[in-house]
């Protein structure tokens, strides 16, 4: 990303966009993200009418269908609060694709203003909330898989790492070819299962080879893909969304 990123002062309130995958598969991670923000003294608003950013259809070429869903999201975030998204992929969609989707259309302005208020969770924690974490957990070795959207579209790979590095009992082990895609790619995994299988198995092997106890990712798509494969292979590796991992290790009452 060549544009200079600008971050606002710490706000009183934020919106939270939970993403459809989290809603159904990782709600506790979604909640953890909200709790992390709330703990920093910021009120989190979760509009109940949110559904999905529209990316699955958009990336499959079904634009009319995608726009219909995306437009419904525009209605949910009318106030001027920052919108925090615990996924590089969905954040990238809303920040970078929405302006394209609604170009030349009556909702263009709304889409553009919304796009400008989108922050991926880790960048929000690091740059806006300037969070400091105290690690209450026991020593653990982790491997971090940063999603392609988080790394390239949102440019927040360093923020993911920075947060984990604040946790004193967490050792990050680096897998080989860590920048490479895990092979999820939404409908790609269904349309081209053989290539996807090849990619996810190599990714999973690289992660197992590090000797890590836990796999962490900031994106549920990758998590579902890699962890699904690790489980299929009956590998003894835990997997966590970065939000729930951080929350559980820094949340006093749970320990």
């Amino acid at each position, binding site marked *: 990303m*060549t544009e200079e990123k600008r971050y606002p002062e710490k706000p009183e309130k934020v919106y939270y966009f*939970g993403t*459809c995958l989290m*809603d*159904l*598969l*990782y*709600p*506790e991670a*979604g*909640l953890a993200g909200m709790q992390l923000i709330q703990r920093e003294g910021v*009120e989190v*608003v*979760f*509009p109940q*009418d*949110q*559904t*999905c950013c*529209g990316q699955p*259809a*958009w990336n*499959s*070429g*079904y*634009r*009319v*269908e*995608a726009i*219909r*869903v995306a437009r*419904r999201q525009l209605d949910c975030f009318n106030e001027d609060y920052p919108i925090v998204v615990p996924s590089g992929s969905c954040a990238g969609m809303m920040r970078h694709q929405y302006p394209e989707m609604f170009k030349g259309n009556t909702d263009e302005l709304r889409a553009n203003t919304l796009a400008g208020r989108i922050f991926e969770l880790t960048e929000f924690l690091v740059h806006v909330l300037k969070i400091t974490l105290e690690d209450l957990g026991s020593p653990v070795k982790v491997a971090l898989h940063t999603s*392609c959207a988080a790394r*390239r*579209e949102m440019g927040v790979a360093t923020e993911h790492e920075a947060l984990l590095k604040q946790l004193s009992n967490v050792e990050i082990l680096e897998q080989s070819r860590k920048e*490479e*895609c895990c*092979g*999820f*790619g*939404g*409908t*790609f*995994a*269904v*349309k*081209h*299962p*053989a*290539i*996807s*299988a*090849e*990619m*996810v198995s190599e990714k999973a092997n690289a992660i197992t080879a590090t000797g890590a106890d836990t796999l962490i990712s900031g994106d549920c798509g990758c998590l579902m*893909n890699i962890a*699904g*494969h690790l*489980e*299929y292979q009956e590998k003894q590796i835990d997997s966590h969304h970065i939000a729930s991992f951080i929350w559980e290790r820094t949340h006093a009452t749970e320990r």
Partner: protein
Amino acid sequence: MQQSAEFHTRVEHALANGQIKASFRSAMDGLMAKRKAAFPDTEALEILRLHGAQIRANSLSKLPELLEQLEMNCHKNGIQVHWAESIEDANNIVLTIMQNHQADLLIKGKSMVSEEMELNQFLEQHGIECIESDLGEYILQLAGEPPSHIVAPAIHKSRQQIAHLFNEKFPDIPYSDDVDRLTRNAREILRKKFYAARVGLSGVNFAVAETGTLCLVENEGNGRMCTTVPPVHIAVTGIEKVVEKLEHIPPLLKLLCRSATGQTITTYFNMITSPRKLGEKDGPEEIHLVLLDNGRSRIYEDDELITTLRCIRCGACMNHCPVYARIGGHAYGSTIPGPIGSILEPQKAGLDKLGDLPTASTLCGACAEVCPVHIPIPKLLNRLRYERTRNDHAGATLGQSSGRTVMEAGTWKGWSWVHSQPRLYRLAMYIITRLRKLLPQRIGPWTQVRKAPHIAPKTLHELALKEGFNDK
């Protein structure tokens, strides 16, 4: 979906072949590392990429004027310019030149456009022998295979395979799988061809409008041979290769060499501006430039898709593509493989023929991250997916709507219907979470290598309400 079946067969064939995977994986790892080392200063690289993108975009924005200027300057310098709408036209132009010179042997430098034209097959039907002189291309010609990479065409072949191939074709030369020995053998065989050929053919990396100069980038010297030794030189190129000014060449050359192989510069940079002048002792007496359209002007019509034409064919996008690294170049079934092939080729051949290619990507963005001229490849892949499935027949892309199926369209309609009605969505998610134990644990290809995802007992919507997070 004939094309899908064929594509999947080729993919499976590639994935099942351990050697293909091993060759590509290690070669691509090497090329990525070399590129990285060639651009130690990321900030300088970003500036240079912007510069490269700007040069190419500007040249494209003036393309018709620049083509006329190029033609005018070429004429002034004595280069004959031919225009070809289609590959048939281009092939016939080359054939006529060959026939005018009663030439039955064409010595060729590396040219992806001639691959696009399938020139060798065409000329051979007319009794003309074509010899590829780039080492990699020559190996492939012996093997009867197309290139699998635009910069390193024979990357899929092992040294031993090449050694056996040479031994089979030239039984008189003692068997050797030593790279130096193999190279020397090829040198000796091809030297005789350079010596004998009356016509040489090359591609063009950049054509400079302001001077009428054809630029060629290469390491082996075969490109120089083809354009220096035979009395006639034919250069074939796509119409998009024009660059406005000579001063634009140094930055593009730097981007091209470093992005492609991590070289500071290639061994030879060959700038050809005219045929042999009076008193000069060598060089072709005649130069022909063939400008090929073959669908490029259609790509040019679209303000977004036009960025495809910026490409300077460095191959960095394929070197960095996780899909290409696994299936190799042949699986694509197109002249140019990899990410750039997946956007360029379906636009040229039609989405009805190559519409699968844009779907064979995770949109991971590794290609766009390295492309020296900032082609937004994932965005264009996405766009072509749309062109392939849209049903309003309002775009200009060839083979539009050809990939739309009732099943798929119906699925997305249903998805859209649920996700654009929040109450319905919440109800649907409520039901799914409550019935999660009853849902199938095998879901198509997903669970062939993965366990099914675990659906939570309650949705985030519910948890947020329960934990007292406000809705407004």
